């Protein structure tokens, strides 16, 4: 087995989030960013003096702020320091963690703070996403990230009733998780006995994709402090969470090849295969204790679980039907409430490894999984179905 050969090991030692809300009108961008940075530093029991480099990211056109890291210099702590701004659309938050891992592992930077944020309320999100499409043609056809194509495909494969029930069950499960997370944005108090009712009454957005299935638009920020093994050995305020490995799989913008009569391999499966093979993981469902997944809608959540966990046939539906993704299930998925509950896009993909790391630390509060969490998986989604995955570990076990 090819071992991932890092120059030095890297751990997450500080995690800071803001509350996530549909509109944080009580804060402007820099104040919101500052809240996350302060929280992360406090969590690490560090000050800015301990930080060598800031890694900053979001999507410029959501807030219409050109190179926002300039304006944020004082509030994100980059003043007088080294700084990178790296962006990859919706995956940006996860990419920032991967990038910070590389920066620290390189030996050039000892301790790095990464920061992802978005104030979606300051722009038009669906319009902003649609502006991703090429201006010559597809921009005329796209409706942001709203699509029922995955629902259509799953229905074709497994039958309408079963898929719609499983998707709504997934949605209600996610809400039950979000109810336990006081930071989550949308906490609706849904009950399983509402399942039939919601399947009928929740407004249709696109085909079988209903409003209730779709993620929210949120304001919020997330920051994390990463440092190297030597620094960890000197003692940390909170238990370190090790970044074992990460992988990214992007694809071209052209969507035509997703909807032909013959399907290409998904980036989710491609990314998972590469990551698991490199780390000798043959059964991800058994290996991981929690999965924080970027699930922009209930259908995508279900479909992507199948891809990420390399499941076959209807295994994913069976697991869903048997409550195996619940907090006390075989592989708890999104104890935080995931993306359907809270989605400040530039921070969303960082919240996944952040929440996964909190689970490993045992610090997740109300939504902490009861059994011990040693191996955590986190994923990001963005662009035209891009995928980033991170593997987090309680122990240095490689």
């Amino acid at each position, binding site marked *: 087995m090819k071992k*991932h050969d890092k120059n030095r090991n890297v751990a997450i030692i500080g995690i800071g989030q803001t509350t996530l809300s549909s509109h944080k009108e009580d804060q402007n961008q820099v104040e919101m960013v500052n809240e996350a940075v302060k929280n992360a530093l406090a969590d690490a029991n560090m000050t800015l003096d301990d930080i060598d480099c800031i890694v900053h990211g979001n999507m410029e056109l959501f807030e219409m702020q050109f*190179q926002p890291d300039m*304006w944020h*210099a004082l509030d994100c702590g980059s*003043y007088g320091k080294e700084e990178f701004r790296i*962006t990859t659309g919706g995956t940006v938050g996860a990419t920032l963690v991967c990038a910070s891992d*590389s*920066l620290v592992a390189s030996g050039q930077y000892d301790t790095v703070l990464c920061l992802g944020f978005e104030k979606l309320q300051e722009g038009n999100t669906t319009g902003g996403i649609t502006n991703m499409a090429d201006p010559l043609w597809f921009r005329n056809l796209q409706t942001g990230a709203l699509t029922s194509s995955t629902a259509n495909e799953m229905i074709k494969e497994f039958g309408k009733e079963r898929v719609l029930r499983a998707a709504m069950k997934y949605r209600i499960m996610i809400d039950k998780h979000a109810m336990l997370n006081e930071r989550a944005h949308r906490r609706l108090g849904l009950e399983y006995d509402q399942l039939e009712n919601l399947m009928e009454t929740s407004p249709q957005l696109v085909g079988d994709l209903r409003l209730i299935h779709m993620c929210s638009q949120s304001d919020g920020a997330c920051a994390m402090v990463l440092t190297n093994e030597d620094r960890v050995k000197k003692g940390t305020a909170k238990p370190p969470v090790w970044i074992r490995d990460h992988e990214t799989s992007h694809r071209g913008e052209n969507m035509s090849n997703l909807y032909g009569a013959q399907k290409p391999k998904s980036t989710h499966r491609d990314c998972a295969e590469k990551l698991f093979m490199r780390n000798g993981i043959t059964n991800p469902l058994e290996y991981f204790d929690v999965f924080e997944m970027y699930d922009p809608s209930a259908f995508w959540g279900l479909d992507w679980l199948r891809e990420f966990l390399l499941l076959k046939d209807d295994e994913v539906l069976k697991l869903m039907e048997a409550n195996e993704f619940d907090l006390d299930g075989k592989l708890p998925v999104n104890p935080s409430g995931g993306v359907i509950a809270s989605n400040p896009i530039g921070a969303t993909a960082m919240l996944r490894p952040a929440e996964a790391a909190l689970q490993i630390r045992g610090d997740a509060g109300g939504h902490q999984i009861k059994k011990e969490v040693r191996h955590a998986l986190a994923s990001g989604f963005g662009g035209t179905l891009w995928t980033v995955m991170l593997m987090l570990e309680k122990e240095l076990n490689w």
Partner: protein
Amino acid sequence: MATKRVAICAVAQHKNEPDLWYKRFQNMLLDVLEDLQGQTGFKYGENGVGIIVSASDDFFDARTISNNGVTDVIGGQYLAEEKMAQEGLNAIGYANAIILSGHKDLVLIMGHCKESQGESRNMITNCGFDPFYGRATGLDYLNAAGLQAQAYMRKSGLTDDQLAEIVVRSRQWAARNPYANAQEVVPAGKVKASPMLCDPIRQLHAYPVSDGAVGLLLASEERAREFTDNPVWITGFANCMDAFFFGDRDLTSNFALKKATANACRRAGIQDLKKAADVAEVMDCYAYQQPMWMEGLGFCGDGEGGRFIAEGGPGKYRVNLSGGTLAGNPMIISGLYRAAEATLQLQGGAGDRQVPDAKCAVAHSTNGPAGQFHSVLILEA
């Protein structure tokens, strides 16, 4: 074991043009990529390029996630592709770290920008200011530079005649650079007669609107020679951020550039950059910036930019033999063009501009209003 050194194996540049109306940026990148593949024969995937670092900007491309539009042409299918959303030179700093970390051993960098596509660069850079106050005052990167130029000229004694001299020299060198945009040689009188854009910055003191694309292939020390006989080593990279609000800054202090230079030199093990460097490429969007940034890089004393020009400093230290940004690159990938020229000089591939036996080069870039952010890359043959 992870590598100890990272090489730039090859560079490819698209010629800078004022208005490439007949090409999308995808077409430009593809031309650059094929050039680079021709030079190195690199492949993607297993044992090939494992990650692509692109450089572009959502505002200039008028696309949310500007890298999404180029993922396919630069080879990002089923690969990691990440966008440096700062000025492009930082893509080299980041790629350097990726290889040093051991995560990947081959990185492709692809930067693009078509400034001609948007109605106005100033409208874009106006959006770089805070929406409440800065934007309303009408600030953009041009008039921010105007403020800095006023202050710096007073401090350094730099004159309008000297600014003209800087532009004249830039054009003379650009005429020898097949990739430069503004290659027309201009007399000093024409520079001094060009209209005032933002006092004291005249039209010919400002970099022209440019479309361009640059590609570089970086490899670990162990693999570099698979792709080139002339690897150029990255020995030091650093950047630094100054404060945003002008009231918090001394616009003439070169605070960020000095700090970035010190860190880059420390990593490269260089005591005195002006002694070590055979070639310097600085990102001079405006003529006054060339002496000011050279001052920040330590090639002359504090406030001595005027004297630096008077004593022929740019010639002596071989500054911007490419013509520099003054001869026209897109702002957000200007540093990649600086690094490309520096690499060519160290590889002996700079044609009519070649400095004999160049061993060490410094490439510089800046970003943000009035040089808020600076990056410094030190390369050695």
